[in-house]
């Protein structure tokens, strides 16, 4: 049910490798829980984060949520389209609704993340 080319965090972020950098977003599960997203605050290119640092904010009509760095690294690219069209996150959470692209300062950190199957089980537990 969740893209198998990505890994997942307990806070419902996904991370996908592309040409040596890593694209990050939030999962369809998170987007659904939040409801219609009204605002996304993205980091700046060049910002550096350690794993689990707060890196972005998402607001919906009824709630606000922080997004955490799934791995340590620095921001290479940001999806500025989200500023005017935050609904992209609800519409295409795994593609057009990407948040940012980052470099990895410690690739080992990826192995601690969940694969699509583990995330699927994790989400099923959440729903109960």
């Amino acid at each position, binding site marked *: 049910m969740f893209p198998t080319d990505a890994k997942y965090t307990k806070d419902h972020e996904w991370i996908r490798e592309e040409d040596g950098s890593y694209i990050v977003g939030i999962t369809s599960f998170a987007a659904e829980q939040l*409801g*219609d997203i*009204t*605002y996304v*605050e993205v980091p700046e290119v060049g910002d550096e984060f350690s794993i689990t640092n707060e890196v972005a904010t998402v*607001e919906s*009509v*009824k709630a*606000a949520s922080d997004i955490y760095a799934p791995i340590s690294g620095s921001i290479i690219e940001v999806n500025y389209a989200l*500023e005017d069209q*935050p*609904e992209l996150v*609800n519409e295409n959470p795994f593609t057009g609704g990407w948040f940012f692209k980052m470099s990895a300062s410690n690739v080992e950190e990826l192995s601690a993340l969940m694969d699509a199957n583990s995330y699927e089980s994790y989400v099923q537990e959440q729903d109960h």
Partner: protein
Amino acid sequence: MHKTALFDIHESIGGKIVDFNGWALPIQFAGIIKEHSQTRANASLFDCSHMGEYTVKGIDAIEAFSKEIISDLSKIPVGRCRYGALLTESAGIIDDLITFRMAKDELYVVTNAGPLDIVTERLCANNPGMSNVSFETAKIDIQGPKARESALKAGFKDTEALKYFNALWTEWEGQRILMARTGYTGELGYELFMPNDLAKKVWSRFQEIDYVEPAGLGARDTLRTEVGYGLSGQDFNKDYTPLESNMQPFIDWDTDFVGKDALVAQRDSNTHDVLVPIQTSSRKSPRHGFDVFDGEQIVGQVTTGTFGPSVGFGIGFARVPQSLSSPGTELTVGPKKIDVEVSTIPFYADGTCRMKL
């Protein structure tokens, strides 16, 4: 949880059901923003059967009721409605309500779900002519610029006669339905009060119309905030008076009501806080419960905060001292101290509710 007469329909069409004051109601169907926009562009159907309804019959019963609320009922001619509130002895708001005068000796009163038991006890216990009909009554709101066309298509005849903030008994397929040209969205629309066993039929007739869609509590909340309406239990409760809750125009000072002495005293000393509209200049939203800061000092609380889909920025209401209540006053709110400005209502000024038909 209580279920309304329309629960099965909501479930079957994919409504996301939540517990709202003990009622199982849909917070959304297609999505809050879609439903909000749909209401402002076409027409939406809302199930508001959780709300309270009371009948008041006979001059004595009306007299007794009038002493309870801040409205001067002599100001309500037959066919007209008036917004008011029920207070405690210390002028705290138990609930806001709307009184409809259906005849010289007949009123219909609409209240909210939260304080229903307390309101019933207060109003009905010592007033034999006042009855709680909430649990037998379903309420369907049709709201939006196409609400009148929709109502006509769905078989409601008397829309021509009905002016804004008026109500009448109408006949629909041989049954009596109370139709009020009122609502909670700022758009043209009607509140339809009917026996429970009519609800599914009426709802289905509206649903057949291609430009009518169901909307849930989430959209109801963004719509009402955009036009400046408060929510009982959230923007005000029994810890706050009408003067602290932006109800000044609805206090009929020349009439008697429970809590009047306390309210007069508060008015005369004039040191009370006030409820003001606030807005951000971005898509960031204030939230209910956020502290309001003037510099480093906490000066109040946000009572309602959300994103206004039709205006494109964060909106809400906050209770602050009068000294900080002028439009243009800059404050910050919440743990991240987002910038807000005191503004004016409505945030959304193009609502069609007063449209001349």
